């Protein structure tokens, strides 16, 4: 009797949260999925037509699909290893206790809590044609005779966006590695020292393998993060020139809020949720196996 009442009370606690999730997450997700099969325009909200898979079909025939995928791949190839290597190095340098270590940890973490908007505008100021970097390269160091067009040359612009992504993400990676490094047993290092292993060997054979699980988690999260790059692209290049720096989210945003094509944007959202879902599933399976 008591257990039954307890279960009923448990449901009462559970229902508000469940309703909240249904209303604000499940319902929009389902509705969005349905919209992806409609010609549904923001300018004609009450007049939508079922068009089956036409939106998905159109996406695969769009040149921008390949441009934005190419850009995401390039961005991911730079930012994922970049953040992991630099974040790990920062954590490795700062995981032991020494005077001032907390200060340095805080400094490395500052970019993580800096607004994307502020960081993007600062980077834009640095990389504009008459910006700080060109001033250094051209006017002070005389390495180039004319200013470099960082933000209007597609691959340079993507590289700048990736640099911003790396700068913003090092602190987050560092914090995760700091936690992982604290858990590596000191006895392993002591034993290795007795066996005559040098610092490099201890790093390669003890430290890196010991934080492998954290590395795999970070890797998946960063890949998902690179799929979600948006604010910096919109603020620094707007996807231009000529859509050459467009990424999936900027493309989706433009489709929804500049061309008012909500059905197409919904299809895009679902199409690109797939690889993220697969990655998540792989990560969860790997975690389960290693447990």
């Amino acid at each position, binding site marked *: 009797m008591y257990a039954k009442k307890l279960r009923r009370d448990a449901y009462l606690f559970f229902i*508000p949260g469940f309703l909240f999730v249904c209303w604000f997450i499940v319902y929009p997700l389902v509705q969005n999925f349905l919209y992806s099969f409609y010609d549904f325009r*923001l300018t004609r909200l009450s007049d939508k037509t079922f068009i089956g898979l036409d939106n998905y079909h159109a996406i695969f025939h769009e040149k921008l699909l390949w441009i934005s995928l190419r850009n995401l791949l390039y961005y991911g190839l730079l930012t994922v290893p970049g953040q992991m290597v630099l974040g790990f190095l920062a954590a490795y340098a700062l995981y032991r206790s020494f005077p001032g270590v907390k200060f340095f940890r805080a400094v490395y973490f500052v970019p993580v809590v800096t607004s994307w908007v502020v960081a993007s505008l600062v980077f834009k100021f640095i990389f504009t*044609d008459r910006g700080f970097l060109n001033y250094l390269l051209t006017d002070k160091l005389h390495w180039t005779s004319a200013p470099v*067009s960082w933000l209007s040359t597609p691959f340079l612009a993507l590289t700048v966006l990736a640099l911003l992504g790396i700068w913003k993400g090092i602190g987050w990676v560092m914090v995760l590695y700091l936690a992982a490094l604290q858990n590596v047993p000191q006895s392993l290092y002591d034993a290795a020292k007795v066996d005559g292993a040098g610092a490099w060997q201890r790093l390669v054979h003890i430290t890196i393998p010991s934080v492998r699980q954290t590395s795999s988690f970070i890797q998946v999260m960063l890949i998902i993060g690179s799929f979600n790059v948006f604010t910096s692209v919109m603020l620094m290049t707007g996807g231009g020139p*000529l859509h050459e720096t467009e990424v999936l989210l900027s493309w989706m945003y433009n489709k929804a809020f500049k061309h008012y094509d909500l059905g197409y944007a919904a299809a895009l959202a679902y199409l690109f949720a797939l690889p993220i879902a697969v990655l998540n599933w792989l990560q969860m399976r790997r975690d389960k196996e290693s447990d």
Partner: protein
Amino acid sequence: MRNRKSLRLIVTLMLLALLAAGCGNGNNNNGQAQGTAGASPNAEQPAEDVTLTFWHHYSTASAEEKTLKEVLIPKFEAEHPNIRVNAVSFPWDQLHQKLQIGASAGELPDVARLDIIWVPELQANDMLVALDEKFDDFAEVSKELLAGPLSTAVIGAHTYALPLNTNTKVLFWNEKMFKEAGLNQAPATMDEFFAALPKLKDKFPQSWGFGEPALRGWNVLPWLWSNGGDVLSPDNTTAQGYLNGAASVEIATKLQQAFSQGLITGFKPGDTPVTEGHAKDVYGMMAEGPWAFAQFTDQFKEFKPMAASFPAGKGGSVQVLGGEDIGILSKEHPEESWEFVKFMVSEAAEVEMGKVGQIPVNLKAMEHPDIKAISYFAPFLEQLTTSKARPPVSAWPQIDDVLNDAFMQIFLQKADVQKTLDGAAQQIDDLLNA
């Protein structure tokens, strides 16, 4: 037991609150945050106390919005004690979006300030009240206004808005850069313009001779028109033979060469904003509207702007006619909206807006001593005599995108000019025939 009852009561209340939040209507108006009063545009008001919502894109950075909120609206409200005006400000492009989406969502203002190029599109979507049909005193009001700007709101047999202000662009030239480059005056012709560019570059290798902030119709049309080219045929039915005609291709090729030699820029991501750059000796010349004077006065007090007519080519010195109309979208308060529209185009309101850089279209305001005293209006008034309006076709916003992409390809990707403009002409024809 008592505790359990209280718990159930709390949970039930929470559920009710959640449902109430979820079922809340969507009547909130996104623009309210910037509004001067808090009423919803469609709120039921007693007949004797009406609140009008006015969407506009008067610049919040300059004195325009301040004049609207602190001078004009209080004056209107004092003259019409039963009408309040809730003015909501948007950036230009966002206002266009809000109007397009608002029609679908059923959330439109009573009155809106409209760029003259939006009027055909909004009229095609049946959003605007035909003023000449609805209001008996229309003829009396409209005869006080300049005929050219008034024509921008005439579609078919009716007039769907009244002109609010007019503008065009003139050539700004940086006197200091010109003097140092051995040039004494602004180029009067296209040939002089293209000859001046390398001279400015030689003297200022880190700068550019001319800055063009974008490559849309507003930016490229003056070049095409002044060289005798065009985007569309005179009857606005085709772009074939016009956008890809010899005169258009010739000037596009010249501009492409100038860009590849580093003589012009301003439209790329990463370029210095053109008006700011002109004051900072980054661009020797630019084509801009009267608002540039307001920006120089506010931000670059030391800079002495110099303005001249746009360089004349085979087609003359032809700039693009800009400006704004004011239209009524209200289904509930058309009469009160009309009172506000009449007030905004009245001599007094036009003089006030003229003082902050908006060239008036009210004939009496143009003759007002305060307006006559504004010396920087002179080159614009002269340029207005040869300015042309962008084609009044409802597909113009999409055509603008096609032009932008085509010219971006020509400049940034060094695309073949003839082939690119052939492709663009075809795309435009498809839009016109859609």
